[in-house]
């Protein structure tokens, strides 16, 4: 397959190998710089990186254009009379120090909230947690991964005992016999992984896709289970029913390594193909066919993404799909297992090191006194000083309305676009006494801010990220920070110093933070202690856990046992439960949201790239022509979508490749174009994930 590959070296230019700034694939790429000016001028494929072998999606190809982009914020901005005025770092810090101290003195330290993000390095994510808890002393810390990976984390923790997104390296996919993809449009959301599925197909592997839309991924599938949004747990139970009935269960594996099989058998007993078909809207024969294909496959992988996770039953859905892999005895083996596609660049690493309301570095629980003791010792603080668990992202934004949180520091995130029920969130952000935002482009959230601090792009700092496989990789610095921008870790350390906590934040470079993170994670579930920058370089990334310096890393997890108290995985027994909002007479259709290949998250980065904007300039309402006919809509006409929370106007895009009762709208736009004005903030009881993927909607021609 691999033909000889060479790179084009132009005169007067050099390459620096690094990884893409966007999704969890963290594709390897070479960034070209002009030797004379040190400016970023383009990209060149990095063929030797094993995960993507030089391949890139359109976002990756144009990622470098962010660095020299004219929209970059190059000096701190302070809002005066509703307008942003450029200021010096001193002025900005003075204001932040005064305001944070004022608010903490009046309302208590917990009145200052920190809202992090995971599109940045492990070092920065780690420091956001420490900054909140040590620098500001607040319990109110959470991050945008709450809207992304929290259900997968919850589901994996409950069933497998540990939250590593993938139980196998991506390169293994080539050797699998069957892929079961649920709620993942991987062709558009993680385009470089499609190679592995297509190569598997070349070898004869079967593909089953569960998705309300016939996505470019589902187009080639052997079976496309076109389920109704919000019915994933039923579908998984229905498949489990057939697997058990038809004798596809790996009994030996189940006896040795799995708890709760009898309960599962009892529960799924009623999920006959008829019943499942009635719940999910998928034809019976398709369900049966899918179950047989999956059951027969010797090496199979169950994979899912936000489609199943961004629901009020996200954790249950993850658990029920994981059940399938467990009863087939697939987890902990070569070319088989279970995996979730990480949405954000460092969605995996960023959730492991204490940016979450209830977690400390190394995936330690904040409620575990031993963990608090250990981390306090690493940080050099009194364990009594350690704030308790806070609340989840949406709840924190919601608590602004109650006056619990009065000031907020948003780092590497854009909740004004990404949060559900956007009008409610916008009002909250307006209500804040003081808002600081770190960003390199003026995001929709930053427009609400009192102070905007210019940060560096990913290319102007070094550090590590953990990709969707659990592989810790190294982001290299391409050029010096543009203008007066500073890396987030420096900004956080400097603010902490202003707050009188400088002695805990003495860092000269990113590697010093990483070395502290290694110690902090030591002995935890996500153990990074044995990972060093040199080792990453030498081994092309290191899979965690890696508990000591001699340890090579762990590409395959759960080979011998599961990190649960009894070493056995727990099947998740889930009865049928409706989505948070179901179709009614008033709101007769289903609205689901998702990504397009040209944009990333809230679009703050990708909406500024010419190529991507040319190809996809605005959101649209994708629907079946049959639905369109009901409302007398033609292709390209404007439609008004209304849910219980808000309404908005969009252009209609017709295709037969979607369910007849479902409208799809991509979510990458802000303000009046934001579909999150409509989405439902109904939260998963475990992961506190909002239900972005299902809500009831009504349509009107406008």
């Amino acid at each position, binding site marked *: 397959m691999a033909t000889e590959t060479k790179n084009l070296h132009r005169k007067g230019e050099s390459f620096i190998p690094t990884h893409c700034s966007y999704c969890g694939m963290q594709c390897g790429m070479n960034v070209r710089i002009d030797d004379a000016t040190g400016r970023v001028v383009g990209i060149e494929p990095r063929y030797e990186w094993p995960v993507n072998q030089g*391949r*890139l999606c359109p976002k990756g190809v144009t990622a470098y254009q962010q660095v020299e982009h004219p929209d970059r914020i190059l000096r701190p901005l302070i809002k005066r009379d509703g307008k942003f005025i450029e200021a010096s770092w001193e002025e900005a810090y003075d204001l932040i120090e005064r305001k944070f101290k004022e608010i903490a003195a009046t309302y208590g330290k917990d009145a200052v909230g920190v809202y992090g993000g995971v599109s940045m390095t492990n070092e920065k994510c780690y420091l956001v947690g420490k900054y909140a808890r040590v620098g500001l002393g607040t319990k109110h810390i959470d991050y945008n991964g709450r809207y992304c990976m929290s259900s997968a984390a919850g589901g994996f923790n409950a069933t497998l005992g540990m939250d590593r997104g993938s139980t196998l390296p991506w390169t293994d996919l080539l050797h699998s016999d069957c892929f079961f993809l649920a709620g993942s449009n991987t062709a558009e959301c993680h385009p470089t992984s499609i190679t592995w599925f297509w190569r598997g197909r070349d070898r004869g592997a079967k593909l089953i896709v569960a998705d309300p839309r016939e996505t470019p991924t589902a187009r080639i599938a052997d079976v496309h289970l076109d389920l109704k949004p919000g019915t994933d747990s039923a579908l998984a139970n229905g498949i489990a029913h057939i697997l058990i009935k038809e004798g596809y269960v790996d009994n030996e594996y189940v006896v040795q390594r799995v708890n709760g099989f009898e309960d599962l058998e009892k529960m799924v007993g009623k999920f006959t193909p008829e019943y499942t078909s009635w719940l999910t809207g998928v034809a019976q024969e398709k369900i049966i066919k899918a179950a047989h294909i999956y059951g027969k496959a010797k090496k199979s992988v169950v994979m899912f993404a936000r489609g199943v996770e961004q629901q009020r039953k996200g954790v249950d859905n993850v658990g029920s799909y994981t059940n399938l892999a467990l009863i087939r005895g697939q987890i902990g083996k070569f070319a088989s297992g279970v995996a979730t596609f990480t949405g954000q660049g460092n969605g995996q690493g960023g959730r492991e090191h204490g940016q979450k309301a209830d977690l400390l570095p190394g995936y330690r629980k904040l409620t575990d006194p031993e963990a608090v003791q250990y981390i306090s010792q690493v940080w050099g603080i009194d364990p009594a000083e350690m704030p308790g668990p806070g609340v989840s992202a949406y709840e924190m934004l919601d608590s602004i309305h109650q006056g619990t949180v009065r000031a907020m520091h948003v780092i590497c995130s854009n909740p004004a676009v990404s949060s559900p029920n956007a009008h409610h969130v916008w009002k909250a952000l307006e209500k804040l006494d003081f808002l600081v935002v770190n960003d390199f482009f003026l995001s929709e959230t930053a427009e609400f801010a009192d102070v905007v601090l210019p940060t560096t792009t990913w290319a102007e700092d070094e550090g590590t990220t953990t990709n969707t496989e659990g592989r810790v990789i190294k982001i290299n610095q391409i050029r010096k920070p543009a203008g007066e921008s500073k890396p987030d870790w420096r900004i956080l350390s400097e603010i902490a110093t202003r707050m009188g906590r400088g002695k805990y934040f003495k860092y000269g470079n990113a590697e010093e933070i990483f070395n502290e993170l290694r110690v902090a994670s030591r002995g935890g579930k996500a153990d990074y202690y044995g990972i060093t920058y040199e080792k990453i370089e030498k081994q092309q990334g290191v899979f965690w856990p890696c508990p000591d310096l001699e340890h090579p890393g762990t590409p395959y997890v759960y080979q011998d046992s599961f990190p649960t108290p009894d070493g056995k995985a727990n099947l998740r027994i889930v009865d049928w439960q409706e989505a948070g909002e179901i179709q009614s007479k008033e709101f007769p259709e289903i609205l689901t949201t998702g990504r397009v*290949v040209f944009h990333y998250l809230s679009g703050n980065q990708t909406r500024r790239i010419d190529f991507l904007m040319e190809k996809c300039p605005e959101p649209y309402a994708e629907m079946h022509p049959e639905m369109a006919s009901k409302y007398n809509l033609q292709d390209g006409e404007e439609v008004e979508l209304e849910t219980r929370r808000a309404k908005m106007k969009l252009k209609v895009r017709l295709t037969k490749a979607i369910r007849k009762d479902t409208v799809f709208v991509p979510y990458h736009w802000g303000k009046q174009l934001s579909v999150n004005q409509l989405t439902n903030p109904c939260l998963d009881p475990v992961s506190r994930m909002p239900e972005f993927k299902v809500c009831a909607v009504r349509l009107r021609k406008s």
Partner: protein
Amino acid sequence: MDRVLYLEFERCIGCRACQAACRECGGHDAKERNYVEYIDFMESRQTFPMMCMHCKDPACARVCPANAIQITKDGVVLSAMEEKCIGCRNCTFGCPFGIPKFDFEKNIMYKCDMCYERTSQDISPMCASVCPSEAIRFIGFEEMMELRRKRAQSNLLQGKKPTEQNKWNFVPETFGVYTE
């Protein structure tokens, strides 16, 4: 050049990375020269990438009244020579594959040159390098023939040998610069 561009339309996921990459190529003036299109979005999300076949006897060059379309010694069919092109657009109508593009502003035709800066040094063109679905590949002639034989069942090559003039009807997803 002993490698060819090989297209397999079914693999295409419509991400248009090849087009973004095309803009990055030297001499392309930040304009893409390839196409990614839906067959019919109403019916399915099937897309297909389309690049120049680099014909040995190109129809575009034959219909050019100014003889502005040249072929390099490697067999790459280049964009119209700027000094000769009179902007008549015959090439855009004559090409059986609909490849040449026309810049009305500059009054000149431009087209896929197989990333001449790269392929002239036997470096894979940008589109094939980045294609995440391997719908576009830059591979050796032998490897291409192997892939083609595998696909022969679904091809229309039934006992007839395509010629340069009518390969449109026969040779499927294969093209590129190669010698027989």
